[in-house]
């Protein structure tokens, strides 16, 4: 089995090594390039969410390099992520590729690992525990707070866009270089632990009063986490989402409202295949510059 695996941000190499440890050859691009994005966009419906396009592009890339199997995550939730594997399978078959599509959900991760690696329950558990520790270490390293960076920024929004540096133009490293500590509201460990809401019970209650229905994705979490960052005295919040992401687009106005209520500056970035880096960097730099000025002024007034 030669498995075509789409990239997943800072976890890509970890996941690749983990699956290779099960005795499976993994074909994974070293970067999501412009060509892969264009390839995916050309073969997708125009208004499908952006992650569906860039994962499709990587799948085509892997199939061209001899992948026999593909893997796609399904949320089994409410948003369109649950349809990705079906739509992509149909599209790729129409393009004439032969392959098996493996669907991974949160529930069948252990059984998939046992099947792929022919492992016992105990051995599978042991390996999962080890990779989980490694994932935690990577997260701690990437999002560590350094005292020389004066600002604290929280990132809320859609998980794929927030965690994939090739798509969000490396927002975390750019922010850190500009002098801001970054707190990522949704990480993989949070997701696996079902603790994607950072706020307290009261924050969740407040968010529920603003949005009573299930939306899927991490729309609800964006509201809770914005409230959390506001209460914790963060300097700003960045809301990142792919274009036409239904949960995030739905909560847009609610996030604006809570940001206004807790007086925390907010900026929103929408990513798709036509986003360009210069425009993004200009806006990001301006946002950070604004927050720094604000902080300096506050400190002047206090002293």
């Amino acid at each position: 089995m030669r498995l075509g695996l789409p990239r997943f941000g800072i976890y890509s190499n970890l996941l690749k090594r983990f699956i290779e440890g099960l005795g499976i050859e993994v074909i994974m691009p070293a970067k999501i390039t412009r060509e892969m994005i264009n390839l995916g966009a050309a073969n997708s419906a125009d208004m499908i969410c952006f992650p569906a396009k860039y994962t499709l592009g990587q799948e085509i890339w892997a199939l061209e390099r001899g992948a026999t199997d593909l893997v796609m995550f399904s949320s089994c939730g409410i948003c369109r992520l649950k349809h990705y594997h079906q739509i992509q399978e149909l599209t790729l078959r129409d393009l004439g590729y032969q392959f098996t599509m493996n669907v991974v959900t949160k529930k069948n991760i252990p059984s998939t690992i046992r099947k792929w690696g022919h492992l016992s329950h105990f051995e599978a558990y042991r390996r999962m525990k080890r990779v989980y520790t490694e994932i935690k270490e990577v997260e701690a390293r990437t999002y560590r707070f350094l005292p020389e960076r004066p600002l604290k920024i929280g990132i809320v929004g859609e998980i794929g866009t927030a965690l994939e540096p090739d798509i969000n133009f490396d927002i975390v490293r750019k922010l850190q270089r500009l002098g801001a500590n970054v707190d990522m509201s949704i990480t993989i460990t949070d997701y696996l632990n079902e603790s994607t809401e950072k706020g307290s019970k009261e924050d969740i209650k407040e968010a529920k009063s603003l949005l009573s229905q299930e939306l899927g994705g991490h729309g609800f979490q964006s509201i809770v986490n914005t409230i959390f960052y506001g209460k914790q005295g963060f300097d700003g919040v960045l809301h990142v989402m792919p274009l036409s992401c239904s949960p995030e687009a739905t909560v847009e106005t609610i996030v604006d409202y809570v940001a206004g209520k807790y007086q925390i500056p907010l900026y929103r970035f929408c990513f798709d295949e036509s986003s360009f880096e210069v425009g993004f960097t200009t806006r990001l730099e301006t946002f950070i510059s604004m927050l720094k000025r604000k902080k300096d002024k506050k400190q002047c007034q206090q002293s």
Partner: protein
Amino acid sequence: MPTILGVDCGSVSIKFALIRDGYIQARVYLRNTGLIPTIKEGLKQLPKADIKGVGITGSGKEFVASLMGADYLDSEIIAHVTATQKEYPSVATILDIGGEDSKLMLIKDGILSGFQMNKDCGGGTGSMIETIATRLGVKIEDVGSVALESQGPANLAGKCGIFCQSAAVSELSKGRPVKDILMGVCRALVGNYLGVLAKGKKLLPPVVFQGATALNSALVKCFEDSLGSPILVPEDCSYMGAIGIALLTEESMNGRATKFRGVKEVVSADYRTEIGYCDDCPNHCELLSLYCDGELLARSGSRCEKKNL
């Protein structure tokens, strides 16, 4: 106090402002016909002065900074706010419509508290009026005075500049007078601006409107009608970015020696650019190299920054 040069290199035009003691000594406005020739032309047109500091803002700031040497770079939003606050200390809202982008800045207690720039599309920016005015045979400078004579403006949609132009042309073939169409375009543009940027925000007075489009009196009137408050237009509305960055540079210099290469040197130098690709990783970053008299001056575009100079 030394003389400071501020340069705002926008997509459509490049603005130069010379500042001394916070007062404007000279200003030059040029159409952007390629960065290198326009910068040279602008420096030639400026009066002779002993420039002790250079600040650069706008979308092409890094490139221009490596071209002429600069002491201070900042984003155009910060520059605009600085210049406006100097002229109107109590300003609360700044509207700015440039050639290919539009910005909204909100100021609370004397500091910038929020800003918004157009993100996905350039509809509702100055280029739209210019294109349609050219199509209707009206000079861009005259749009304001022509449109203000209108009694019954046409109802046009302003989301997409090209569709707006189609609607304008079909109104024209129906026999609608040009002044009504132009007023309709101005209204559509203001509606689009407020819909895209000011969504859910309170635009409190005093409101300042700037950018070269603020010279268009019809647009000013449309904003006044929609916001219900008087709109202030600074005298140097097209130069605010250049003035702001010069003021910021003046503040940050503190007697440092300038990195500016000198007017004569920049004007007489032979600049050449070269585009290449880095093949070290699958990103294939586009590298832009700038040569000055055959010598490599700067290189940019490498995402991992290892090949940047």
